[in-house]
């Protein structure tokens, strides 16, 4: 721990941000209350660097802030029109790649993908839709898997492996055929020991891993992102949890 007067800073959009040695730009930014959009980053896990939503410019060059170690004096651009446009494009690609019918999604109002899209003013998905065929898995008595909305962030894979120690999930395939699978002989969730108290239940940023029989319980208007944008409420997980899993 460095003392206050030794603390070094770097710049995000011209603003001084302190950092601790070894921190990434994302960690230091969030600690300082500066929001950088992200989907596959979670403070409790090693950065994944896959969604690219957190792309910033460092000394003029693009980089993912969740994987970028801070150096003193670094100049980061984040909330620029150019980067917001790029992030919106990434979101649009995520939307058309899956099947995102928000009105019938139990995660709607609490979904990070949707909340980011609101925040970045995504008025339409812009691209042509893939409309992929991704059957759901309803074999578990308490949990539904709706793969239509998976953005392949691997947070469930990481949570199930590193925290729950069950390895229920994995990604399989490459490129556009990459998809989430369940590690059981039948490939069905009902044949795993997944339980609703697992951390893998709560990390999915979108509406894939859902507890049955509780959907739509919270009325529209009272859901997480209905009134407050995600950029104004981004505390992901308490750091206390961080310690436990080290």
């Amino acid at each position, binding site marked *: 721990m460095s003392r206050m007067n030794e603390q070094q800073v770097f710049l995000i959009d011209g603003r001084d941000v302190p950092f601790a040695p070894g921190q990434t730009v994302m960690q230091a930014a969030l600690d300082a209350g500066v929001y950088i959009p992200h989907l596959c980053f979670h403070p409790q896990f090693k950065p994944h660097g896959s969604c690219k939503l957190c792309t910033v410019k460092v000394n003029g060059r693009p980089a993912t802030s969740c994987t970028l170690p801070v150096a003193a004096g670094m100049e980061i651009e984040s909330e620029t029109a150019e980067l917001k446009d790029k992030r919106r494009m990434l979101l649009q690609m995520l939307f058309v790649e899956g*099947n995102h019918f*928000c*009105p019938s999604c139990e995660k*709607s109002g609490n979904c990070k993908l949707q909340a980011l899209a*609101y*925040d970045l*003013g995504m008025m339409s*998905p812009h691209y042509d*839709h893939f409309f992929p065929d991704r059957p759901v898995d309803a074999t578990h008595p308490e949990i539904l898997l709706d793969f239509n909305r998976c953005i392949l962030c691997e947070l469930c894979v990481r949570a199930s492996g590193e925290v729950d120690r069950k390895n229920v999930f994995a990604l399989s395939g490459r490129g556009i055929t990459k998809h989430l699978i369940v590690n059981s002989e039948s490939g069905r969730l009902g044949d795993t020991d997944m339980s609703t108290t697992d951390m893998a239940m709560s990390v999915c940023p979108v509406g894939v891993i859902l507890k049955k029989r509780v959907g739509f319980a919270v009325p529209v208007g009272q859901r997480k992102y209905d*009134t407050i944008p995600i950029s104004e409420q981004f505390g992901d997980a308490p750091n206390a949890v961080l310690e436990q899993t080290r």
Partner: protein
Amino acid sequence: MNAPARKLRVATTSLAGCFGCHMSFLDIDERILKLLELIEFDRSPLTDIKHCGPCDLGIIEGGVCNAENVHVLREFRANCKILVAIGACAVNGGLPAQRNHLDLRDILEEVYHTSPGLAPGSQIPNDPELPLPLDKVYPIHEVVKIDYFLPGCPPSGDAIWKFLTDLIAGRTPHLSHEMMHYD
């Protein structure tokens, strides 16, 4: 807002939608009187005019699920200076597009022919009056160019009012966080 030199002509239609967006449009309540000082309706379920003439603004609810939808959408594009997609179905196909991963013939077979409880001899309807369904339900921007999108299922009356008054005043429409929703 000052009244424009002449009233803007506005056409609206519902393609593969549920008319929910039109109902929500009526939720602007008495503001419709204010709106009617600024606009007049061309083709619309509100006027029952059957074909769209030259218009300043076209508002499309619903996605494209059959051949007739394609014709109507093209008629709107050809006649409207500005075309707006209103609601989830126009924006991404919405609920009707949830059939898109299924084979169309399989769906029709099951619904009209093989599912239990149908009258004996039930067949897939084949009346020449019926527009042919498309293989998939398409968001309207995948068929013609769309100038603006107003998401929501449906967008609220307030969101529609804000959107229209921005457009009519010549501003880029802007929704507040609370007006912006996909559901």
